[in-house]
């Protein structure tokens, strides 16, 4: 507080006002809401004024923004305002967490890898055109490898002693219908990131809200909410997705909504139990007896104090969603229009004996991405939540 500001002592704070709805919002919240409103306006413009097949943007690139893209933009904004901004404004705390996190070198490598996957996944598809059917160039081997020249229809690279060699034109080879595996992998990155991040954002939002409300309201509200969570959790997630997916069809958008709307049970439980522990603590009681409003207490005291466990749990949720999506796509129960890793793995399955790279390479990316999220999540737990041991 600067010196020329009127001194605001504890007694002079009007707690009724502080407890009001508006003042629960910090500057960061207002920034988030403002940008959300902008996105909503842009979405309204795109949805109502532009016909569906007209691209939203023609400059600098042609980009027809889909429903999912809009959701993804919202997710990125949430990440910006609720992860990046706090990390930047609490530099000392960030430095402390980073020092803890850095102790785990495997996690640092994983973080770098994930950042690369994220960036390439977000930016790549804008510059790479969607993989096209090109039967003439089917089954090209990856660069530096060779297969029997009989495998590809015609070999783009050198043919030496009956072996077809890969070329840089298709560094990871091509599928049976001639799509470039590298391009598919890049598109798959975007699909995975969308699935993982958007679903997790939905889960975190719903789970945290339900959890804190249940913990703070208690009584009947708590009972009803938690019994509902019990029922929801009894359904094994995979089969719930399977059933809903069968019934409501398999667009990626549906997929993510189903994940998000049904996957928050354990998050709500976690937040509730954490919040219950916290609400016993002195500062909540103090805020309560000082007359702060319910919403104010939840928003300003409970939520920030459970955020470490939430972030850790969320990091470990992301790979689960990515894996579910890949599995469902692999079963060809996913979105047939989206080149997801699971789909490519399934596509290459029948040609394993001849074109090994089609299934294995995207699988390798899927595996390493999930592994990296697990490493990062584990290190985050150590850094943010030292009470828990694994």
């Amino acid at each position, binding site marked *: 507080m600067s010196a020329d500001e009127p001194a605001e002592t504890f007694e002079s704070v009007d707690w009724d006002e502080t407890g009001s709805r508006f003042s629960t919002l910090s500057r960061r919240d207002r920034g988030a809401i403002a940008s959300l409103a902008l996105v909503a306006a842009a979405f309204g413009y795109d949805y109502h004024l532009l016909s569906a097949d007209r691209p939203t943007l023609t400059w600098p690139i042609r980009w027809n923004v889909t429903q999912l893209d809009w959701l993804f933009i919202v997710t990125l904004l949430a990440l910006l305002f609720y992860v990046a901004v706090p990390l930047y404004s609490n530099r000392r705390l960030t430095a402390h967490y980073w020092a803890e996190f850095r102790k785990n070198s495997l996690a640092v490598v994983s973080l770098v890898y994930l950042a690369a996957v994220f960036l390439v996944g977000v930016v790549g598809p804008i510059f790479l055109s969607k993989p096209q059917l090109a039967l003439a160039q089917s089954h090209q081997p990856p660069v530096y490898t060779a297969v029997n020249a009989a495998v590809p229809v015609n070999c783009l690279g050198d043919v030496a002693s009956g072996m077809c060699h890969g070329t840089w034109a298709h560094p990871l080879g091509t599928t049976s219908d001639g799509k470039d595996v590298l391009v598919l992998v890049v598109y798959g990155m975007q699909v995975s990131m969308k699935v993982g991040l958007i679903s997790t954002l939905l889960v975190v939002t719903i789970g945290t809200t339900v959890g804190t409300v249940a913990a703070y309201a208690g009584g009947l509200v708590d009972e009803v909410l938690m019994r509902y969570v*019990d*029922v929801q959790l*009894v*359904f*094994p*997630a*995979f*089969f719930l997705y*399977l*059933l*809903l997916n*069968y*019934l*409501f069809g398999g667009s990626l958008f549906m997929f993510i909504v189903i994940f998000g709307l049904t996957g928050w049970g354990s998050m709500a439980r976690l937040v509730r139990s954490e919040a219950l522990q916290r609400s016993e603590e002195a500062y909540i009681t103090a805020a309560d007896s000082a007359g702060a409003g319910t919403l104010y207490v939840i928003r300003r005291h409970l939520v920030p104090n459970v955020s470490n466990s939430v972030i850790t749990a969320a990091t470990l949720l992301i*790979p689960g969603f990515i*894996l579910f999506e*890949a*599995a469902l796509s*692999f*079963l060809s*129960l996913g979105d047939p229009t989206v080149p997801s890793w*699971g789909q490519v*793995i399934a596509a290459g*399955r029948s040609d*394993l*004996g001849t074109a*090994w790279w089609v*299934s*294995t390479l995207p*699988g390798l990316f*899927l*595996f390493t991405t*999930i*592994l990296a999220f*697990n*490493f990062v999540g*584990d290190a985050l737990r150590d850094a943010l939540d030292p009470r828990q*041991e*694994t």
Partner: protein
Amino acid sequence: MSMRWYVVRRVLWAVVATYLILSVTWGLLALTPNPAAEQLQFRAAASGGSAEAAREAFEARRGLDRPLWDRYSDYMVNMVTLNWGWSDSRSQPVMEAIAGAIPYTAVYSVPTTILSVLLGLSIGLYSATHQYTRTDYAATFFAFFGYAIPNFWFAIVLLLVFSVQLGWFPVVFDPDVPLVGFAMAHQLVLPVVVLVTGTIAGVMRYSRAEALEYVQAEFVKTAKAKGAGEFRILTRHVLRPAAVPLMTILIGDILGIFLAASYLVEVVFGIPGLGQLSYNAILAQDTALVLGTTLIFTFVAVIGNLIQDIAYTILDPRIDYGDR
């Protein structure tokens, strides 16, 4: 409150949960257009008939034109009496199809469960008592590997290497060999390896974490001071108290992983168990069978939860029956 009353309450809760699940499923079915009906309509329209008439005929045949409440009570009665409908794609009652598939699921599930619990527990306990040794790190890394590897992909890679390239195991599952015998065991090696790799990781990590809480406990020191040997301390004084939280995790988490994994593994290896039955039903848009198989998996989970709760009361003398 007595333990018996507590168990009764948990059983009642399982019944209520089952009822809710059935109702929700019914509601979902009632809300969504039946894919088979859509197909009929499409066919009717394509062959110049009336799509509307085709739909009405279909609904009349299925009794879908009756009031909602009648349909709901019929559905519930059928569910309870295990009359789960007719599978169009297999031309047999759903129950019969399920009964025929269960042995093929059991034949690999049983060894997988035994192996992953035994191996997972022993490696986890070893890791806990030899914390920060090279073996511990290796076990931890293996656990991460098992967690992260997509089992359907792992299955494909194993098939490629060991069946296609090396020819050690059959590529195609043969359902005609006797259920218990060498040939069956031989063709189940790869599926079991895939499933154990996936589930063992969880068992290992959790048993390590739980055991770590106890290897340094005062009462373990007491047991040592009494003259108990290493093995007795580990099994009686560490594992037994750790079993209480482990129970929750083993059934809650691992069962979920296992059910999903077995589904995928059956599809990849072509094992004609419940998973493949369900998968084929989805592809054939055989709603009755999709529903039946999904519900079977769900009931397994409900019963698992129930067993977990009851086991908890038996294992932990400290439980407060008034809670929940």
